[in-house]
């Protein structure tokens, strides 16, 4: 993914320049959140399911080394080939070796946030391998040379007219066509040709079952299955935290996943891969890339329970109004903001601050990750490590001084109210980021303390 030196608020400011688009983005994601609610409320046992899922995932994380070995043993017994990758570079090399070993230089790939995390497409391109993303949203951002902005809805930041322009430029649609029906049909024909001719297909993994050595991939489009069944070699890349202990636990997670993600009762396809067809190969790559270190942080390891539904993004007031690209990380939004500092705290020190800490993310999380509490904890770790932005640090120091001195606090309040009343331009100006795209309510005449002293009688 593209590296950037801009932080979340600078990138968000960029996104906020087009107010109409921000409103559309905000309302569309909220609409998905409402679809989620409508679907979820039909299940009286919803909260029980969340609790059970959380317990299963906690159990997995506490015994992960056992489940990993169990999965490896069973998957191998089933005829799949299991690889281990300590980091992104090793993962990418394994994929390249599999391709080069067979003289293949073209691959079709369905959605995998892990390969975004590993920068697989860029790596393979450098080595002369062409990768085509087959999920429609991913294909669109790939043509636009952008990373996905949402883990479930990769091109949610794009308007159909922009997509029409991309298709005009790359896929030969007439200029000015922006009808989603026509654009989708064009992509169908274009990608069909890709599916029919690629010998290697890579997919992500939603769940891998230790007990049976199988893995499950969920899509609505059918692109993972089209790629995998038409290719000779299916490579499935998964983070080591994707394991679940037993097959029956799929019942819990498949009931939660899509209801949380898009408000559908289940994805169109929930495909269980256990043995390759005759003459074909399935390779599973188990990727660590920092997860085992993450596991050793009691305050933060619960984020490894994530099943990548994206519900926390759809509900987040900051994500909805700042867009996925402002998070400069493969996984955006609240969950991305607590995952990213594990990989690189310095580079991602801004992300835990890109939140109001309202807690809506934790409330919708299907596996009950305490997302907003972890955001708050990361802030403390980041400030203690001296990585807070200078302005924020200075501001906090002033706040500390004012809040620890009652005299200073009282007079600061008076001055503040006077300024709001007689000299609002002193605070509401371009130098104060608070006033970007928003306003403050007018200040009260007196503080609560003054009111109380006058009225207590």
């Amino acid at each position, binding site marked *: 993914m593209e590296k950037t030196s801009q932080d979340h608020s600078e990138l968000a400011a960029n996104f906020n320049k087009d107010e109409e688009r921000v409103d559309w983005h905000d309302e*569309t994601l909220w*609409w*998905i959140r409402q679809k989620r609610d409508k679907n979820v409320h039909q299940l009286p046992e919803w909260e*029980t399911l969340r609790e*059970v899922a959380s317990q299963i995932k906690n159990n997995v*994380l*506490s*015994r*992960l*080394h056992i489940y990993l070995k169990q999965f490896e043993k069973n998957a191998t017994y089933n005829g799949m080939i299991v690889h*281990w990758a*300590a980091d992104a570079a*090793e993962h990418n090399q394994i994929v390249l070796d599999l391709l080069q070993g067979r003289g293949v230089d073209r691959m079709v790939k369905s959605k995998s946030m892990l390969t975004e995390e590993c920068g697989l497409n860029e790596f393979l391109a450098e080595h002369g391998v062409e990768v085509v993303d*087959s999920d*429609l*949203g991913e294909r669109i951002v790939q043509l636009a040379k952008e990373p996905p902005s949402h883990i479930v*809805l990769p091109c949610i930041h794009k308007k*159909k007219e922009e997509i029409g322009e991309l298709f005009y430029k790359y896929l030969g649609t007439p200029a000015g066509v922006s009808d989603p029906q026509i*654009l*989708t*049909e064009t992509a169908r024909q274009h990608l*069909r040709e890709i599916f*029919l001719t690629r010998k290697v297909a890579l997919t992500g993994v939603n769940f891998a079952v230790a007990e049976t050595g199988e893995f499950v991939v969920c899509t*609505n*489009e*059918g*692109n993972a*299955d*089209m790629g995998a*069944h*038409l290719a000779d070699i299916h490579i499935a890349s998964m983070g080591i935290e994707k394991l679940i*202990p037993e*097959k*029956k*636990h*799929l*019942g*819990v997670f*498949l*009931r939660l996943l899509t209801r949380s993600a898009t408000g*559908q*009762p*289940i994805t*169109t*396809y*929930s*495909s*269980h*891969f*256990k*043995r*390759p*067809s005759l003459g074909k190969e399935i390779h599973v790559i*188990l990727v*660590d890339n920092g997860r*085992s*270190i993450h*596991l*050793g942080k*009691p305050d933060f390891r619960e984020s490894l329970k994530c099943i990548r539904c994206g519900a926390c993004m759809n509900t987040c007031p900051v994500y909805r109004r700042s867009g996925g690209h402002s998070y400069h990380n493969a996984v955006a939004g609240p969950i991305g903001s607590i995952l990213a500092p594990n990989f690189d705290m310095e580079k991602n020190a801004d992300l835990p601050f890109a939140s109001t800490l309202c807690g809506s993310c934790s409330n919708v999380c299907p596996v009950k990750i305490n997302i907003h509490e972890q955001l708050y904890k990361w802030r403390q770790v980041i400030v203690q490590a001296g990585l807070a932005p200078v302005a924020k640090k200075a501001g906090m120091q002033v706040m500390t001084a004012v809040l620890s001195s009652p005299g200073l606090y009282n007079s600061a309040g008076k001055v503040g109210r006077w300024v709001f009343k007689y000299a609002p331009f002193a605070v509401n100006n371009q130098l104060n980021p608070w006033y970007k795209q928003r306003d403050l309510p007018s200040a009260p005449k007196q503080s609560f303390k003054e009111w109380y002293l006058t009225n207590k009688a």
Partner: protein
Amino acid sequence: MSSREKILNAVRANQFNGPALPDIEFLERKGKGTPEKFKTVLSSIGGEVFYINSLDEVSRIVARQFSAISRIVNLVPGIQIPTQETLLENIDPAQLHSVDLALIPAHFAVAENGAVWVTAEDLSPRVIPFICEHLAIVINSGHIVPTMHEAYQLIANYNYGYSVFIAGPSKTADIEQSLVIGAHGPRSLTVFIKV
């Protein structure tokens, strides 16, 4: 040290006292799922349902619903479509890309989400239900479970090489959240419920 050892050691070093696996049997419901519920949910996600009394009816309904199509593949025992083609063993899966309609059997259906469960032994090659333009699936009305918990109870010991829950036609809403049916897979899904 191999990466396998390195990863397992690092993971083991950071394991903690976690909870035991919760009992999830209490989530299972007594009784069967109803065809009505299944039909309501599947219709809401773009599928179409026909009740049939005998498999003979399928051929007539297919002729009516899919009048303009030519290439039909049928994998359901007991059904004979006059124009169906016989699949060669070891056919190159890519040669199936012009199949207009595929009929396949399913083991059972799930009422809560409109899904049917299909396994590889009934699908040779596996790509059939994805590559066809239209898909039709035949189930028995006695084989409908209420939720995914009973579904996994049923298939607990089933040894498949590949299996898939299919719920509705292939679809996408990636362009401005506008729903489009027929992304990469079938443009329609018809389920015949034999009562």
